[in-house]
């Protein structure tokens, strides 16, 4: 059934890929881990697509879901547009470098790097998050860049924050962009790490600003992929529409779902896929 060279025609293939992508988008939205990270393994392992086609299709779906989600987030007043815009210089440069690397790195290495990133995301989703320190003194560079802000806090009222370590955050963001361009993922986890841990930006502001940045980062590498012929319309169509539908559905049922159990199951799936990708990379069957 999964051998696309025999049996499956375009219609069957499209429907199955759309269903698989929708489940990935739904789980990604419900667990907050993002659907992009399971899409490439799904397309390469289950649907036997070349990893470069899979990365191209995944990038396109990352733009769709992040733009859809960002539209909702920016209105809530959590995301900081100035922080996002400044750091996008780093993520887009990184994305271009990553996309370029993807065109020269052998596919088996892409598979292995992808596997390692999957294992790390699975680990990261269970590591307790150290609390961001509050009431830090203003940092001269962050102040000069007008990054300090405030957001509606859980206790009510506005809570002010002072951004720290801009060079550290900027460097991490370059890395996040490079991973995104190399593997076709949103790399939201690394972006949040850069803002929340390195720059001491409140978690809620970090996650929403990260979401805001993912689309622009992915657009930088998607343009490169498209002009290089790495984006196949027949594959990208069901992937993009499926993931978008799944993530929109996920955002609607988010409040009712038992996300803790789901997060656990999803991270086990991610770890399993990570091992598979590494194995396939080593044996050269990717």
């Amino acid at each position: 059934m999964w051998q696309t060279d025999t049996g499956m025609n375009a219609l069957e293939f499209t429907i199955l890929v759309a269903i698989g992508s929708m489940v990935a988008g739904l789980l990604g939205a419900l667990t907050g881990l993002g659907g992009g990270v399971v899409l490439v393994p799904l397309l390469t392992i289950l649907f036997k697509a070349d990893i470069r086609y899979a990365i191209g299709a995944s990038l396109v779906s990352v733009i769709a879901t992040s733009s859809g989600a960002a539209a909702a987030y920016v209105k809530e007043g959590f995301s900081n547009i100035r922080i996002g815009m400044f750091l996008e210089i780093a993520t887009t440069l990184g994305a271009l470098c990553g996309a370029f690397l993807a065109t020269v790195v052998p596919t088996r290495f892409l598979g292995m790097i992808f596997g390692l990133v999957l294992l790390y995301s699975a680990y990261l989703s269970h590591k307790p998050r150290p609390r961001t320190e509050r009431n830090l003194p203003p940092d001269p560079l962050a102040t000069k860049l007008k990054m300090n802000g405030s957001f509606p806090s859980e206790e009510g009222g506005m809570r002010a924050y002072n951004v720290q370590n801009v060079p550290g955050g900027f460097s991490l963001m370059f890395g996040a962009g490079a991973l995104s361009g190399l593997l076709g993922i949103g790399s939201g986890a690394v972006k949040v790490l850069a803002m929340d841990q390195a720059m001491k930006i409140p978690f809620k502001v970090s996650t929403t600003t990260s979401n805001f940045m993912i689309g622009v980062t992915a657009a930088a590498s998607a343009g490169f992929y498209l002009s290089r012929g790495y984006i196949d319309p027949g594959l990208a169509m069901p992937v993009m529409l499926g993931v978008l539908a799944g993530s929109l559905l996920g955002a609607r049922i988010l409040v009712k779902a038992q996300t803790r159990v789901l997060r656990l199951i999803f991270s086990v799936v991610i770890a399993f896929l990570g091992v598979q990708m590494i194995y396939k990379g080593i044996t050269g069957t990717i």
Partner: protein
Amino acid sequence: MPRNWSDQNIEDVVGNLLRAGVTLSATVVFGGGLVYLIGHGRAAVDYRLFRGEPPELRSLSGILHNAFSRHGLGIIQLGLVLLILTPVARVAFSIWAFAAERDRMYVMFTGIVLVILLYSLLGSGSAF
């Protein structure tokens, strides 16, 4: 005009812009998908071997020509171009918004991001 008020307004416009871009591109991709499947639904597909897309599906002029000849794959690709252009439009709008706030430093930062984005689309091959 207090800064927070205008920042909130910018965020509203950005939110609507993103939503409109995604809706438009998803509609075009869906339409193209229908045309493609009606015409080629029974054809065999194989993505195991990487060949790369032909020039008419990777350059903007080729994609436009293909889409307006009502070829399904060309229409899908046009929808994907619109999707890629959505964040680019957001960045372009932000330049205008920062200029309206007379924030020269952020006009410059946003300009750098726009140049990088346009380079990726225009400079890296035969896209346009």
